Protein backbone atom coordinates (compact mmCIF):
# COMPACT_ATOMS: atom_id res chain seq x y z
CA UNK A 1 0.00 0.00 0.00
CA UNK A 2 1.06 3.62 0.55
CA UNK A 3 4.59 4.45 1.63
CA UNK A 4 5.07 4.92 5.33
CA UNK A 5 6.62 8.18 6.55
CA UNK A 6 8.86 8.28 9.63
CA UNK A 7 6.36 6.61 11.87
CA UNK A 8 3.66 6.13 9.25
CA UNK A 9 0.70 6.42 11.59
CA UNK A 10 -2.33 8.59 10.82
CA UNK A 11 -3.70 7.65 14.21
CA UNK A 12 -1.62 6.78 17.22
CA UNK A 13 -3.09 5.76 20.55
CA UNK A 14 -1.08 5.44 23.75
CA UNK A 15 -2.24 3.73 26.91
CA UNK A 16 -5.89 4.73 26.57
CA UNK A 17 -8.04 4.02 29.61
CA UNK A 18 -11.76 4.49 30.23
CA UNK A 19 -14.19 3.33 32.88
CA UNK A 20 -17.97 3.57 33.24
CA UNK A 21 -19.14 3.35 36.83
CA UNK A 22 -17.24 0.46 38.36
CA UNK A 23 -16.47 -1.17 35.05
CA UNK A 24 -13.05 -0.63 33.50
CA UNK A 25 -13.79 -0.86 29.76
CA UNK A 26 -10.47 0.19 28.24
CA UNK A 27 -7.44 -0.97 30.20
CA UNK A 28 -4.61 0.66 28.28
CA UNK A 29 -5.10 0.52 24.52
CA UNK A 30 -2.07 1.04 22.28
CA UNK A 31 -2.51 1.23 18.53
CA UNK A 32 -0.91 2.69 15.43
CA UNK A 33 -3.11 2.91 12.34
CA UNK A 34 -0.77 3.46 9.37
CA UNK A 35 -1.51 6.19 6.83
CA UNK A 36 -3.25 5.04 3.66
CA UNK A 37 -4.13 1.60 4.98
CA UNK A 38 -7.16 -0.23 6.29
CA UNK A 39 -6.81 -1.13 9.96
CA UNK A 40 -9.51 -3.43 11.25
CA UNK A 41 -10.34 -3.87 14.92
CA UNK A 42 -11.84 -7.24 15.81
CA UNK A 43 -12.61 -8.96 19.08
CA UNK A 44 -15.31 -10.70 21.11
CA UNK A 45 -18.38 -8.64 22.06
CA UNK A 46 -17.78 -6.64 25.20
CA UNK A 47 -14.05 -6.29 24.52
CA UNK A 48 -14.46 -2.52 24.23
CA UNK A 49 -13.96 -2.10 20.49
CA UNK A 50 -17.01 0.12 19.94
CA UNK A 51 -16.14 2.24 22.98
CA UNK A 52 -12.61 2.52 21.63
CA UNK A 53 -13.85 3.68 18.22
CA UNK A 54 -15.99 6.31 19.95
CA UNK A 55 -12.79 7.72 21.41
CA UNK A 56 -11.22 7.88 17.95
CA UNK A 57 -14.18 9.76 16.47
CA UNK A 58 -14.14 12.10 19.47
CA UNK A 59 -17.52 11.18 20.92
CA UNK A 60 -16.06 10.00 24.22
CA UNK A 61 -13.21 11.38 26.30
CA UNK A 62 -10.74 9.00 27.94
CA UNK A 63 -9.83 8.94 31.63
CA UNK A 64 -6.18 8.94 30.64
CA UNK A 65 -3.96 8.24 27.65
CA UNK A 66 -3.22 10.00 24.38
CA UNK A 67 -4.82 9.99 20.95
CA UNK A 68 -2.87 11.56 18.10
CA UNK A 69 -4.86 12.09 14.92
CA UNK A 70 -2.92 13.40 11.91
CA UNK A 71 -0.19 14.77 14.24
CA UNK A 72 -2.65 16.51 16.61
CA UNK A 73 -2.97 15.34 20.19
CA UNK A 74 -6.75 15.51 20.67
CA UNK A 75 -7.41 14.48 24.28
CA UNK A 76 -6.28 17.91 25.51
CA UNK A 77 -8.70 19.71 23.15
CA UNK A 78 -12.39 20.38 23.72
CA UNK A 79 -15.35 22.19 22.18
CA UNK A 80 -14.74 24.21 19.02
CA UNK A 81 -11.01 23.40 19.12
CA UNK A 82 -11.92 19.89 17.96
CA UNK A 83 -13.72 21.14 14.83
CA UNK A 84 -10.60 21.18 12.58
CA UNK A 85 -9.84 17.58 13.61
CA UNK A 86 -13.45 16.52 13.08
CA UNK A 87 -13.36 17.95 9.57
CA UNK A 88 -10.60 15.47 8.69
CA UNK A 89 -12.78 12.54 9.76
CA UNK A 90 -15.58 10.75 7.98
CA UNK A 91 -17.64 8.48 10.20
CA UNK A 92 -20.01 5.69 9.24
CA UNK A 93 -22.22 4.59 12.12
CA UNK A 94 -23.41 1.06 12.70
CA UNK A 95 -27.05 1.76 11.79
CA UNK A 96 -26.13 4.42 9.24
CA UNK A 97 -27.55 7.26 11.36
CA UNK A 98 -29.07 8.92 8.32
CA UNK A 99 -31.44 11.75 9.26
CA UNK A 100 -34.81 10.14 8.70
CA UNK A 101 -36.61 13.46 8.26
CA UNK A 102 -34.49 14.23 5.17
CA UNK A 103 -34.23 12.74 1.68
CA UNK A 104 -31.08 10.92 0.59
CA UNK A 105 -30.00 14.00 -1.36
CA UNK A 106 -30.46 16.25 1.68
CA UNK A 107 -28.64 13.74 3.88
CA UNK A 108 -25.60 13.50 1.63
CA UNK A 109 -25.58 17.25 0.98
CA UNK A 110 -26.00 18.05 4.68
CA UNK A 111 -22.30 18.46 5.67
CA UNK A 112 -21.72 20.75 2.68
CA UNK A 113 -24.88 22.79 3.28
CA UNK A 114 -24.02 23.28 6.95
CA UNK A 115 -20.25 23.64 6.84
CA UNK A 116 -19.31 25.18 3.49
CA UNK A 117 -20.26 28.17 1.34
CA UNK A 118 -20.63 26.17 -1.87
CA UNK A 119 -23.46 27.15 -4.22
CA UNK A 120 -26.52 25.01 -4.75
CA UNK A 121 -25.22 23.79 -8.12
CA UNK A 122 -21.79 22.93 -6.76
CA UNK A 123 -23.37 20.96 -3.92
CA UNK A 124 -25.69 19.10 -6.30
CA UNK A 125 -22.69 18.19 -8.47
CA UNK A 126 -20.69 16.91 -5.48
CA UNK A 127 -23.67 14.85 -4.25
CA UNK A 128 -24.10 13.34 -7.71
CA UNK A 129 -20.38 12.44 -7.90
CA UNK A 130 -20.30 10.97 -4.42
CA UNK A 131 -23.44 8.87 -4.90
CA UNK A 132 -21.89 7.60 -8.15
CA UNK A 133 -18.75 6.72 -6.19
CA UNK A 134 -20.71 4.47 -3.82
CA UNK A 135 -22.76 3.03 -6.71
CA UNK A 136 -26.02 4.49 -5.54
CA UNK A 137 -27.98 6.47 -8.10
CA UNK A 138 -31.59 7.42 -8.73
CA UNK A 139 -32.57 7.45 -5.05
CA UNK A 140 -31.92 11.14 -4.32
CA UNK A 141 -35.56 11.96 -3.61
CA UNK A 142 -36.25 8.91 -1.45
CA UNK A 143 -36.23 8.83 2.34
CA UNK A 144 -33.87 6.50 4.24
CA UNK A 145 -36.77 4.30 5.38
CA UNK A 146 -37.59 3.57 1.73
CA UNK A 147 -34.16 2.02 1.08
CA UNK A 148 -32.80 -1.45 1.83
CA UNK A 149 -30.16 -1.91 4.52
CA UNK A 150 -27.33 -2.14 2.01
CA UNK A 151 -28.47 1.00 0.19
CA UNK A 152 -28.72 2.89 3.49
CA UNK A 153 -25.12 1.89 4.25
CA UNK A 154 -24.04 3.23 0.86
CA UNK A 155 -25.90 6.49 1.41
CA UNK A 156 -24.36 6.87 4.86
CA UNK A 157 -20.94 6.15 3.37
CA UNK A 158 -21.57 8.85 0.76
CA UNK A 159 -22.40 11.32 3.53
CA UNK A 160 -19.20 10.37 5.37
CA UNK A 161 -17.14 10.85 2.18
CA UNK A 162 -18.61 14.07 0.82
CA UNK A 163 -16.51 16.33 3.04
CA UNK A 164 -13.37 14.73 1.52
CA UNK A 165 -12.02 13.35 4.82
CA UNK A 166 -8.46 12.05 5.22
CA UNK A 167 -9.51 9.37 7.66
CA UNK A 168 -12.60 7.19 7.46
CA UNK A 169 -13.97 5.41 10.54
CA UNK A 170 -16.44 2.61 10.12
CA UNK A 171 -18.41 1.00 12.94
CA UNK A 172 -19.45 -2.50 11.85
CA UNK A 173 -20.24 -1.46 8.27
CA UNK A 174 -21.79 -4.80 7.33
CA UNK A 175 -24.07 -5.41 10.34
CA UNK A 176 -27.42 -6.79 9.24
CA UNK A 177 -26.37 -7.51 5.66
CA UNK A 178 -26.42 -10.88 3.92
CA UNK A 179 -23.10 -12.43 2.76
CA UNK A 180 -23.44 -11.17 -0.84
CA UNK A 181 -24.05 -7.59 0.26
CA UNK A 182 -21.30 -7.89 2.86
CA UNK A 183 -18.85 -8.78 0.08
CA UNK A 184 -20.10 -5.85 -2.02
CA UNK A 185 -19.66 -3.37 0.85
CA UNK A 186 -16.17 -4.74 1.57
CA UNK A 187 -15.21 -4.30 -2.08
CA UNK A 188 -16.64 -0.77 -1.99
CA UNK A 189 -14.60 0.09 1.12
CA UNK A 190 -11.38 -1.17 -0.50
CA UNK A 191 -12.08 0.64 -3.78
CA UNK A 192 -12.96 3.92 -2.01
CA UNK A 193 -9.87 3.67 0.18
CA UNK A 194 -7.62 3.20 -2.85
CA UNK A 195 -9.35 5.87 -4.92
CA UNK A 196 -9.03 8.61 -2.28
CA UNK A 197 -5.88 7.28 -0.56
CA UNK A 198 -7.79 7.21 2.72
CA UNK A 199 -6.70 5.91 6.06
CA UNK A 200 -9.48 3.60 7.24
CA UNK A 201 -10.12 2.39 10.77
CA UNK A 202 -12.91 -0.13 10.99
CA UNK A 203 -14.56 -2.18 13.69
CA UNK A 204 -15.88 -5.42 12.27
CA UNK A 205 -17.30 -8.72 13.45
CA UNK A 206 -17.05 -10.16 9.94
CA UNK A 207 -14.17 -12.48 10.86
CA UNK A 208 -12.27 -13.86 9.01
CA UNK A 209 -13.87 -12.47 5.81
CA UNK A 210 -12.84 -8.90 6.62
CA UNK A 211 -9.14 -9.94 6.63
CA UNK A 212 -9.30 -10.03 2.80
CA UNK A 213 -9.49 -6.22 2.67
CA UNK A 214 -7.50 -5.41 5.82
CA UNK A 215 -3.87 -4.24 5.76
CA UNK A 216 -3.57 -4.42 9.54
CA UNK A 217 -5.68 -6.20 12.12
CA UNK A 218 -5.90 -5.32 15.81
CA UNK A 219 -7.38 -8.00 18.03
CA UNK A 220 -8.89 -6.48 21.14
CA UNK A 221 -9.35 -8.51 24.27
CA UNK A 222 -10.15 -7.44 27.82
CA UNK A 223 -10.02 -3.73 27.01
CA UNK A 224 -6.67 -3.65 25.22
CA UNK A 225 -5.10 -4.60 21.90
CA UNK A 226 -3.81 -8.11 22.47
CA UNK A 227 -2.45 -8.75 19.00
CA UNK A 228 -1.56 -6.49 16.09
CA UNK A 229 -0.17 -7.11 12.62
CA UNK A 230 -1.00 -8.01 9.06
CA UNK A 231 -3.80 -10.56 8.67
CA UNK A 232 -1.20 -13.24 7.89
CA UNK A 233 0.90 -12.35 10.91
CA UNK A 234 -1.93 -12.51 13.39
CA UNK A 235 -3.51 -15.68 12.02
CA UNK A 236 -0.14 -17.44 12.28
CA UNK A 237 0.72 -15.96 15.68
CA UNK A 238 -0.62 -18.94 17.66
CA UNK A 239 -2.21 -16.60 20.17
CA UNK A 240 -4.45 -18.64 22.44
CA UNK A 241 -7.11 -15.93 22.98
CA UNK A 242 -7.27 -15.15 19.28
CA UNK A 243 -7.68 -18.79 18.32
CA UNK A 244 -10.41 -19.23 20.89
CA UNK A 245 -12.12 -16.12 19.43
CA UNK A 246 -11.86 -17.51 15.87
CA UNK A 247 -13.14 -20.92 16.97
CA UNK A 248 -16.04 -19.34 18.87
CA UNK A 249 -16.83 -17.23 15.86
CA UNK A 250 -16.87 -20.28 13.58
CA UNK A 251 -19.13 -22.16 16.02
CA UNK A 252 -21.54 -19.22 16.18
CA UNK A 253 -21.63 -18.92 12.37
CA UNK A 254 -22.31 -22.64 12.13
CA UNK A 255 -25.27 -22.23 14.47
CA UNK A 256 -26.73 -19.52 12.21
Amino acid sequence: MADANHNGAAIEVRDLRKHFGRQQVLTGVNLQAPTGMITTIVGPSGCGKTVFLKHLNLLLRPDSGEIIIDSVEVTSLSGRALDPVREKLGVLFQAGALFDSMTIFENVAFPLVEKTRLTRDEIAERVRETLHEVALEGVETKYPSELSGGMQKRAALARALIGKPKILMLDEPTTGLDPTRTGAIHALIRRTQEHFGLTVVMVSHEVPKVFEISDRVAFMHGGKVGLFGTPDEITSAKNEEFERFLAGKAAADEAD
Partner: protein
Amino acid sequence: MNLIEPIERFGEDILEAVAALGNFILFLAQAFRLIFAPPYKPRLAIRQVRTIGAESLLLVTLIATFTGMVLGLQGYNTLRRFGSEGALGTVVALTLVRELGPVLAALMIAARAGSAMAAELGAMQATEQIDALTVMAINPIQYLVSPRMLAGVIAFPLLTSIFDVVGIWGGYVIGVGLMGAPGSSYMNGIAANLESHDIATGLYKALVFGVTVTWVCCYKGYYARRMATGVSEATTAAVVLSSILVLAFDFCITAIS
Protein backbone atom coordinates in the same frame (compact mmCIF):
# COMPACT_ATOMS: atom_id res chain seq x y z
CA MET B 1 -17.74 -4.38 54.80
CA ASN B 2 -21.45 -5.19 54.99
CA LEU B 3 -22.13 -2.09 57.05
CA ILE B 4 -20.26 0.25 54.78
CA GLU B 5 -21.64 -0.95 51.48
CA PRO B 6 -25.21 0.44 51.81
CA ILE B 7 -23.78 3.77 52.94
CA GLU B 8 -21.44 3.82 49.96
CA ARG B 9 -24.31 3.06 47.63
CA PHE B 10 -26.44 5.77 49.20
CA GLY B 11 -23.59 8.24 48.76
CA GLU B 12 -23.19 7.20 45.12
CA ASP B 13 -26.91 7.71 44.49
CA ILE B 14 -26.80 11.19 46.02
CA LEU B 15 -23.73 12.13 43.95
CA GLU B 16 -25.45 10.83 40.84
CA ALA B 17 -28.60 12.86 41.57
CA VAL B 18 -26.60 16.04 42.15
CA ALA B 19 -24.65 15.46 38.94
CA ALA B 20 -27.90 14.90 37.01
CA LEU B 21 -29.39 18.12 38.38
CA GLY B 22 -26.24 20.03 37.46
CA ASN B 23 -26.33 18.53 33.98
CA PHE B 24 -30.01 19.51 33.65
CA ILE B 25 -29.26 23.14 34.49
CA LEU B 26 -26.11 23.28 32.34
CA PHE B 27 -28.21 21.99 29.45
CA LEU B 28 -30.52 25.02 29.80
CA ALA B 29 -27.61 27.44 30.09
CA GLN B 30 -25.88 25.98 27.06
CA ALA B 31 -29.01 25.90 24.87
CA PHE B 32 -29.80 29.49 25.83
CA ARG B 33 -26.26 30.74 25.20
CA LEU B 34 -26.08 29.02 21.81
CA ILE B 35 -29.21 30.88 20.61
CA PHE B 36 -26.95 33.94 20.38
CA ALA B 37 -23.83 32.21 18.99
CA PRO B 38 -23.02 31.91 15.28
CA PRO B 39 -23.76 30.22 12.93
CA TYR B 40 -27.30 31.64 12.93
CA LYS B 41 -29.94 29.40 11.41
CA PRO B 42 -33.23 31.32 11.60
CA ARG B 43 -34.97 28.80 9.34
CA LEU B 44 -34.58 26.10 12.03
CA ALA B 45 -36.33 28.29 14.63
CA ILE B 46 -39.02 29.33 12.14
CA ARG B 47 -39.78 25.70 11.36
CA GLN B 48 -40.12 25.04 15.11
CA VAL B 49 -42.44 28.03 15.57
CA ARG B 50 -44.65 26.35 13.00
CA THR B 51 -44.45 22.96 14.79
CA ILE B 52 -44.92 24.27 18.31
CA GLY B 53 -47.11 27.26 17.49
CA ALA B 54 -49.16 27.03 14.34
CA GLU B 55 -49.78 23.31 14.61
CA SER B 56 -50.99 23.66 18.22
CA LEU B 57 -53.41 26.45 17.29
CA LEU B 58 -56.47 24.27 16.73
CA LEU B 59 -56.02 22.38 20.00
CA VAL B 60 -55.41 25.56 22.00
CA THR B 61 -58.47 27.26 20.44
CA LEU B 62 -60.64 24.27 21.24
CA ILE B 63 -59.49 24.04 24.86
CA ALA B 64 -59.84 27.82 25.27
CA THR B 65 -63.41 27.75 23.97
CA PHE B 66 -64.49 25.10 26.46
CA THR B 67 -62.59 26.71 29.33
CA GLY B 68 -64.29 30.06 28.62
CA MET B 69 -67.69 28.39 28.36
CA VAL B 70 -67.27 26.66 31.72
CA LEU B 71 -66.10 29.89 33.32
CA GLY B 72 -69.12 31.73 31.85
CA LEU B 73 -71.53 29.12 33.14
CA GLN B 74 -70.00 28.58 36.56
CA GLY B 75 -69.20 32.27 37.05
CA TYR B 76 -72.73 33.32 36.18
CA ASN B 77 -74.31 30.82 38.58
CA THR B 78 -72.04 31.93 41.43
CA LEU B 79 -72.25 35.67 40.81
CA ARG B 80 -76.05 35.59 40.51
CA ARG B 81 -76.27 34.53 44.16
CA PHE B 82 -74.68 37.84 45.08
CA GLY B 83 -76.61 39.80 42.47
CA SER B 84 -73.41 40.71 40.66
CA GLU B 85 -73.90 39.19 37.19
CA GLY B 86 -72.45 42.41 35.80
CA ALA B 87 -69.00 41.41 37.06
CA LEU B 88 -68.97 38.22 34.95
CA GLY B 89 -66.70 39.65 32.25
CA THR B 90 -64.15 40.82 34.81
CA VAL B 91 -64.12 37.45 36.59
CA VAL B 92 -63.74 35.47 33.38
CA ALA B 93 -61.06 37.77 31.95
CA LEU B 94 -58.95 37.99 35.12
CA THR B 95 -59.08 34.24 35.68
CA LEU B 96 -58.03 33.56 32.12
CA VAL B 97 -55.40 36.24 31.66
CA ARG B 98 -53.64 35.77 35.00
CA GLU B 99 -53.94 32.02 35.56
CA LEU B 100 -55.79 29.66 33.28
CA GLY B 101 -54.61 31.06 29.95
CA PRO B 102 -50.86 30.60 30.45
CA VAL B 103 -51.18 27.38 32.48
CA LEU B 104 -53.66 25.51 30.31
CA ALA B 105 -52.00 26.64 27.08
CA ALA B 106 -48.63 25.45 28.44
CA LEU B 107 -50.05 22.07 29.53
CA MET B 108 -51.70 21.57 26.15
CA ILE B 109 -48.54 22.49 24.22
CA ALA B 110 -46.49 20.21 26.48
CA ALA B 111 -48.85 17.34 25.75
CA ARG B 112 -48.91 17.95 22.01
CA ALA B 113 -45.61 19.51 20.93
CA GLY B 114 -43.48 18.71 23.98
CA SER B 115 -44.11 14.98 23.80
CA ALA B 116 -43.32 15.00 20.09
CA MET B 117 -40.10 16.91 20.80
CA ALA B 118 -38.96 14.37 23.40
CA ALA B 119 -39.86 11.43 21.13
CA GLU B 120 -38.08 12.93 18.12
CA LEU B 121 -34.86 13.73 19.98
CA GLY B 122 -35.04 10.37 21.79
CA ALA B 123 -35.29 8.50 18.49
CA MET B 124 -32.42 10.57 17.07
CA GLN B 125 -30.31 9.67 20.11
CA ALA B 126 -31.20 5.97 19.84
CA THR B 127 -30.23 5.79 16.16
CA GLU B 128 -26.97 7.76 16.60
CA GLN B 129 -28.25 10.74 14.59
CA ILE B 130 -27.16 13.07 17.40
CA ASP B 131 -23.67 11.52 17.35
CA ALA B 132 -23.68 11.96 13.58
CA LEU B 133 -24.16 15.72 14.04
CA THR B 134 -21.32 15.84 16.57
CA VAL B 135 -18.82 14.08 14.31
CA MET B 136 -19.72 16.51 11.50
CA ALA B 137 -18.59 19.31 13.85
CA ILE B 138 -22.16 20.55 14.28
CA ASN B 139 -23.12 21.22 17.89
CA PRO B 140 -26.29 19.14 18.38
CA ILE B 141 -27.55 21.35 21.19
CA GLN B 142 -27.24 24.41 18.99
CA TYR B 143 -28.76 22.62 16.00
CA LEU B 144 -31.60 20.81 17.77
CA VAL B 145 -32.32 22.38 21.16
CA SER B 146 -31.65 26.12 20.82
CA PRO B 147 -34.10 26.61 17.91
CA ARG B 148 -36.81 24.78 19.85
CA MET B 149 -36.23 26.92 22.91
CA LEU B 150 -36.30 30.13 20.87
CA ALA B 151 -39.49 28.93 19.18
CA GLY B 152 -41.02 28.20 22.60
CA VAL B 153 -40.24 31.72 23.77
CA ILE B 154 -41.96 33.11 20.65
CA ALA B 155 -44.90 30.71 20.42
CA PHE B 156 -46.03 30.36 24.04
CA PRO B 157 -46.96 34.05 24.64
CA LEU B 158 -48.73 34.16 21.25
CA LEU B 159 -50.74 31.01 21.91
CA THR B 160 -51.53 32.23 25.42
CA SER B 161 -52.86 35.52 24.04
CA ILE B 162 -55.05 33.63 21.60
CA PHE B 163 -56.21 31.35 24.43
CA ASP B 164 -57.21 34.41 26.52
CA VAL B 165 -59.17 36.08 23.73
CA VAL B 166 -60.96 32.91 22.65
CA GLY B 167 -61.74 32.05 26.30
CA ILE B 168 -63.25 35.49 26.96
CA TRP B 169 -65.36 35.05 23.83
CA GLY B 170 -66.47 31.57 25.02
CA GLY B 171 -67.49 33.03 28.40
CA TYR B 172 -69.48 35.71 26.60
CA VAL B 173 -71.34 33.22 24.43
CA ILE B 174 -72.48 31.16 27.44
CA GLY B 175 -72.75 33.85 30.15
CA VAL B 176 -74.42 36.52 28.04
CA GLY B 177 -75.87 34.57 25.12
CA LEU B 178 -77.26 31.58 26.97
CA MET B 179 -77.66 32.62 30.61
CA GLY B 180 -78.61 36.24 29.98
CA ALA B 181 -75.97 38.25 31.85
CA PRO B 182 -75.88 41.90 30.69
CA GLY B 183 -73.69 42.07 27.56
CA SER B 184 -72.52 45.66 27.82
CA SER B 185 -71.25 45.29 31.39
CA TYR B 186 -69.38 42.08 30.37
CA MET B 187 -67.18 43.97 27.93
CA ASN B 188 -67.10 47.30 29.84
CA GLY B 189 -66.12 45.46 33.03
CA ILE B 190 -63.15 43.93 31.26
CA ALA B 191 -62.09 47.26 29.81
CA ALA B 192 -62.34 48.95 33.20
CA ASN B 193 -60.80 46.31 35.46
CA LEU B 194 -58.23 44.39 33.43
CA GLU B 195 -54.97 46.25 33.99
CA SER B 196 -51.81 46.10 31.94
CA HIS B 197 -50.12 44.61 35.01
CA ASP B 198 -52.48 41.60 34.76
CA ILE B 199 -51.68 41.12 31.10
CA ALA B 200 -47.96 41.48 31.73
CA THR B 201 -48.06 38.84 34.49
CA GLY B 202 -49.85 36.42 32.18
CA LEU B 203 -47.39 36.95 29.34
CA TYR B 204 -44.43 36.72 31.69
CA LYS B 205 -45.74 33.35 32.83
CA ALA B 206 -46.14 32.22 29.22
CA LEU B 207 -42.51 33.17 28.58
CA VAL B 208 -41.28 31.18 31.60
CA PHE B 209 -43.45 28.19 30.62
CA GLY B 210 -42.16 28.36 27.04
CA VAL B 211 -38.60 27.95 28.29
CA THR B 212 -39.59 25.32 30.87
CA VAL B 213 -41.50 23.04 28.52
CA THR B 214 -38.94 23.13 25.68
CA TRP B 215 -36.07 22.74 28.15
CA VAL B 216 -37.54 19.70 29.95
CA CYS B 217 -38.82 17.99 26.80
CA CYS B 218 -35.57 18.48 24.86
CA TYR B 219 -33.49 17.35 27.84
CA LYS B 220 -35.50 14.18 28.38
CA GLY B 221 -35.35 13.31 24.67
CA TYR B 222 -31.68 14.21 24.33
CA TYR B 223 -30.66 11.94 27.19
CA ALA B 224 -33.09 9.11 26.39
CA ARG B 225 -31.63 5.66 26.92
CA ARG B 226 -30.62 4.03 23.67
CA MET B 227 -33.36 1.45 23.34
CA ALA B 228 -36.97 1.24 22.22
CA THR B 229 -38.34 1.71 25.74
CA GLY B 230 -35.95 4.63 26.24
CA VAL B 231 -37.98 6.78 23.86
CA SER B 232 -41.32 6.01 25.50
CA GLU B 233 -39.86 6.59 28.98
CA ALA B 234 -38.40 9.90 27.86
CA THR B 235 -41.71 11.02 26.35
CA THR B 236 -43.69 10.19 29.49
CA ALA B 237 -41.12 11.77 31.80
CA ALA B 238 -40.98 14.90 29.62
CA VAL B 239 -44.74 15.53 29.78
CA VAL B 240 -45.04 14.68 33.48
CA LEU B 241 -42.05 16.74 34.60
CA SER B 242 -42.90 19.75 32.43
CA SER B 243 -46.51 19.72 33.72
CA ILE B 244 -45.31 19.62 37.33
CA LEU B 245 -42.80 22.39 36.78
CA VAL B 246 -45.37 24.56 34.96
CA LEU B 247 -47.77 24.33 37.92
CA ALA B 248 -44.99 24.86 40.47
CA PHE B 249 -43.57 27.89 38.64
CA ASP B 250 -47.11 29.22 38.20
CA PHE B 251 -47.58 29.21 41.96
CA CYS B 252 -44.21 30.90 42.52
CA ILE B 253 -44.87 33.67 39.99
CA THR B 254 -48.39 34.29 41.32
CA ALA B 255 -47.05 34.45 44.87
CA ILE B 256 -44.39 37.05 44.09
CA SER B 257 -46.32 39.25 41.63
